[in-house]
């Protein structure tokens, strides 16, 4: 997993609520047996018409908006557990998704992919969306070690929460498996001690 520490970038606003993982990456693109290349089909049905032409009006086809941060509405990533959704966002160049709430499985998948799910209040999200929509060149700064999201042009910073262990993992590029493997003896002891074994 890549390391994540700080990021300064413009953002892409997609302020719809309840964006599900079927929209992020439709099921018919899940036939690949590798992790690569999903970015090309990110938001495929919103982004392209059935003949493959980019759909006018969808934010990823709007040249004014670009950057490594996606600003999305409440309950982002609900639905299917497909980690391919996080892979697709990452593969398309996003490093951070900002929302006022993330679906549980998506949040975990994002963290395991190296994509930072950054939760802010509904009010801050609304302000960010309004700002970025009107001023697409607005820079945002994410600082993971200090857990702050800054908007330099406002001269304002917002603190965000993240599990401390997960934060260390992102900063150092570790994933859970390294930690779990180090716990092998505790796992075996647990298995042997179970009174009700399966």
């Amino acid at each position: 997993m890549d390391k994540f520490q700080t990021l300064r970038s413009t953002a892409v606003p997609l302020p719809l609520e309840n964006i599900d993982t079927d929209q992020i990456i439709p099921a018919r693109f899940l036939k690949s047996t590798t992790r690569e290349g999903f970015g090309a089909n990110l938001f495929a049905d919103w982004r392209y018409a059935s003949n493959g032409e980019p759909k006018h009006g969808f934010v990823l086809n709007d040249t004014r908006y670009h950057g490594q941060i996606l600003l999305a509405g409440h309950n982002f990533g609900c639905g299917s557990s497909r980690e391919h959704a996080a892979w697709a966002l990452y593969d398309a160049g996003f490093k951070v998704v900002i929302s006022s709430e993330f679906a549980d499985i998506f949040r975990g998948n994002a963290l395991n992919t190296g994509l930072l799910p950054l939760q802010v209040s509904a009010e801050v999200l609304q302000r960010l969306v309004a700002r970025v929509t009107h001023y697409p060149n607005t820079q945002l700064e994410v600082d993971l070690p200090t857990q702050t999201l800054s908007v330099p042009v406002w001269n304002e910073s917002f603190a965000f929460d993240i599990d401390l262990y997960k934060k260390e993992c992102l900063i150092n590029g570790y994933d859970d498996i390294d930690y779990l493997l180090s716990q092998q003896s505790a796992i075996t002891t647990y298995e042997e001690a179970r009174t009700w074994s399966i």
Partner: protein
Amino acid sequence: MAKSLFDKIWDAHVVKAIPGGLEVFYIDRHLIHEVTSPQAFDELRARGLPLLRPAQMVATADHNVPTRNQHLPIADPISRSQVDKLTENCASFGVELFGLGHENQGIVHVIGPELGITQPGMTIVCGDSHTSTHGAFGAIAFGIGTSQVTQVMATQCLLLSRPKRMRITIDGELRPGVTAKDLILHIIAQLGTGGATGYFVEYAGSAIRSLSMEGRMTVCNMSIEMGARGGMIAPDATTYAYLQGRPYAPQGERWTQVLAYWQTLYSEEGAEFEADLLIDAQTIAPMITYGTNPGMGIALSGHIPAQVAASEAASFEKSLQYMGFQPGETLLGKEITHVFIGSCTNSRIEDLRAVAAYVQGKQKAAHVEAIIVPGSKSVEKQAIAEGLDKILAQAGFELREPGCSACLAMNDDKIPDGAYCVSTSNRNFEGRQGPGARTLLASPLVAAITAVQGRIVDITQYLN
């Protein structure tokens, strides 16, 4: 202190608590399928890791399989290669596989319970969000992403933070024509698609107790549609009767031992829940969804909301535009061209029986295409043994071979662009059943009546 069902099982699976709140959490059963496992096997290979407990895993091919001519090689080369990859991986890592053509093959959440692999008190995971289905047996069961699939493969554990607890009690008797599917659609409509995010839900109350195991699975299955990590129901006599004698269920003396343990699995009086909801079963009507998330549900004879909160307005408008509906209108009378009966929500034998019982001696409307996809080989076999296949065929319904099918349309079973489909599946997301497809979620009974009438009707006037 009084303990909840959830805490009893959770606590029994904590290998180690880590300062900061995460816990090393032990997994008893790991189910895998062709779509979310190949990258996990690759990761194991790349790291030179073995499977820690292959005997605690079971694999099946379901998401991507055709539902016709399963005895022939899969026509689509990419789908075929994904299914072949699963076969190769299971062979080289020593995982039991119920592949295409195997008598135990089927949708992963249908076969686990049916074979007795799913048992009370267990922790069960699968790289699929509807793993919550298995909670119907009093298990902690939830969906995971592919990175976590790798973790369970290598260590039989996950690193998790404990979710909050929610109890939803449904007391009273369900009205005629109201099924387990209506019950859960009602709950999701009340809570909204993200209303249980961060929670693990226990369903309780007399309406839940009176459901069959099939009905309980339907309820737990859709827990994820309100954002819950999972759903569960305390095991009882119905659970034990269902499990006893199933191929992978404990037998003989072992059965007596586990039964004694299972009987301790319930929420004690005074157990704590961060959220506790009470619903009167009599208030639940036959349901249908009108929008593009499962929380957008109404009573069949109700109306689409005329307006919603300002923050939801853009999503609501986009949703209705996609569906071709107007705010405030009724769905009654809307013409339907497709009916899909299947998916891990409603493809068990009880669902097929309910449909057959209704359509016996009737005909589907001429303009409707109605397919029924059984959840497993065993459901298919049972349906044929009971003669349901003939009843369905005479009514113009096509009984297919098992798989996920038009629930997610990864195979050829797609609903055409713009067409309306009443579906017994669990998701009505844009494009879920094929690009442009418009899905209305409902119970098997509502689906059967819709197929016969060719349009949406108030089913209470059409019950047999």
